[in-house]
């Protein structure tokens, strides 16, 4: 099931949590939604799931608006714990069994055991990580076509974080979609096929992870002295940003790194390197103001 978000706007009072956000999420994909805190990711999820009413804009599932029946195919793990404090874990499983046709209690208990959650415990007796684990287990036992996960590893120790990641990969292998937001860029890099980056309610970047990594590079040139000019090169549409410190210039390019590198050479650079950017770098560049410099871990490009 594909999801099409068109010109989504959500205002709380005068401030826009989401501002003119358009995104197409294809079916059978793992889609990562990144953004700084307060960027509007959770609000976007809420609008997608009918938990908040958009101020304007449309969200369609396979071309149709959200209906109660659509929820048979959507499982949601919210950011905060929404378990019923006074109910036991087992009672939560039963509740899900009655509410959803394709829910598998056996699978739920299997997953709960993987996370080391005791079935008899009441939700109020569980730690934050355990509660996240319960919500994750319930969602993955649903066999739903789409899983919407808002920070699914919140409060989890690294072992359990790996479990969640493996679960996500398994779901993807089954052909289900996962849309998730996470601050764990490493997880996003592994699991996500597509990503979108939000900042202050707007979409600032989207694309396939592999393509973004292949195209976005830093081209670094070291010049013999400080008297060099770059005019033509800096104006190239593929150069998103240029930082110049004494004899070193670093250009952030969105494609054509090799070409830009050779132009730097022609402009007189004595050493030119093309540096790779990982997803964290790409993300940081996307959300930071245009003229700020950010620290980039220097990695030689081998592609």
């Amino acid at each position, binding site marked *: 099931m594909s999801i099409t978000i068109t010109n989504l706007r959500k205002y709380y009072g005068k401030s826009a949590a989401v501002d003119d956000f358009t995104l197409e999420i294809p079916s059978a994909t793992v889609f990562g939604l990144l953004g700084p805190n307060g960027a509007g990711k959770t609000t976007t999820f809420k609008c997608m*799931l009918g938990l908040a*009413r958009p101020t304007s804009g449309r969200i369609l599932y396979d071309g149709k608006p959200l209906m*109660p029946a*659509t929820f*048979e195919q959507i499982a949601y793990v919210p950011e905060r714990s929404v378990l019923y404090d006074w*109910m036991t874990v087992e009672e939560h499983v*039963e*509740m899900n069994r009655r*509410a*959803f046709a394709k829910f598998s209690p056996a699978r739920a208990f299997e997953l709960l055991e993987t996370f080391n959650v005791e079935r008899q415990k009441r939700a109020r007796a569980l730690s934050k990580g355990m509660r996240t684990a319960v919500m994750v287990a319930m969602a993955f036992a649903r066999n739903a076509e789409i899983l919407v996960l808002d920070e699914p590893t919140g409060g989890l120790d690294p072992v359990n974080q790996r479990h969640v990641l493996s679960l996500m990969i398994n779901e993807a292998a089954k052909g289900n979609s996962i849309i998730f937001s996470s601050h764990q860029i490493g997880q996003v890099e592994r699991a996500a096929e597509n990503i979108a980056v939000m900042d202050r309610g707007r979409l600032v970047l989207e694309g396939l992870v592999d393509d973004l990594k292949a195209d976005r590079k830093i081209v670094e040139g070291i010049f013999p002295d400080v008297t060099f000019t770059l005019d033509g090169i800096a104006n190239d549409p593929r150069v998103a940003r240029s930082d110049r410190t004494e004899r070193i210039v670093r250009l952030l390019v969105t494609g054509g790194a090799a070409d830009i590198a050779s132009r730097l050479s022609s402009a007189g650079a004595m050493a030119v390197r093309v540096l790779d950017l990982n997803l964290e770098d790409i993300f940081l560049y996307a959300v930071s103001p245009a003229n700020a410099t950010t620290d980039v871990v220097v990695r030689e490009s081998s592609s």
Partner: protein
Amino acid sequence: MNYVEWLRVRNLLRTTAIILAILVVLAVILRISVSRYMSPDAWVAHMSLDPGTKVTHTVLPGGTKRTTILDPSEPSTVVIDDHGYSGKHIVITEPTSRAHKEQQAHNIGIGSIQVHESRHGSLTTTVIDTNGSVPMLYYMALADVVALIVATILAAPLAREIDGHLEIALTRPCSRVRYALEVIGADAVGILAASVMTIAAFYLVQLLFESARLDFSGINARAIAMGVTLPLAWYALLCAATTWLNRSYGAVLGFAWPVTILIGALTLIPPGNVVALFVHDVAWVLSRLNPLTYVSFASPNDNGTLDYTGAHFALRLSIEVLMFVVYGAIAILKWQRVEA
């Protein structure tokens, strides 16, 4: 029926059962302590111990068995008319003793037993009627007390969901309206179950002491109809109030009773001046919104019975039903629009 709400109801019914059990024990103790009015055979045995007591058994025309006990030493007379299933009529004439009350005349009615004491001179006559049947009115009154308490505890189910569980409640393959109806349905079943449990408990108490017939006639049928709808209407009112007010639903529920009583009291203000008139009128209007206003635990009639009758009963009952529906709809309306 909604599973989560059903669990809440079940837990509450369990607690109610325990409390009812305690009340039943207390009721049994109470019944035993007034049993000196209750067992003619025991009396006969007791009194015939005195020397000189004469016991006579006759059968009156019509089948009534009459036992007469004369004790010349006190002197005291006991006449027991046993009408069989229709109950017993006992007249005791004895010298006034410390066991009797101070007043000239004294009445006690407990369930199916009516006791009337009157003093004349140095003698006291006690007339005991056990007609063997209990008006459902009494049972419904007890049941309603419990049902209203249960209704207040269960009320605010939607407010509870709004308080942190919307992400679960609203992401179901189930329309919002249907979800709300299932939740309210579970609570309604719980409230009715509490009424039934209460009636069953006290019926049990009665059975321990005598054969119990239930009188469903006349005002009793009306009492049942009103007794069923009143707690539901009260529940619906609290649902509407808590779902709309963005305040702690616990506080709303807790203050519901005192506020109701206060408004009721304010309607009794005599309209002495403009301010008093204003307060009285406002309170009067507000009290029209309260389901409890339409149940008159009314003034007794001349012959001592309570009056639920009148052409207005049908109207009042309809108002209760209407309140249940309207307040429920108001709660569901807010639920439809709520955002997580």
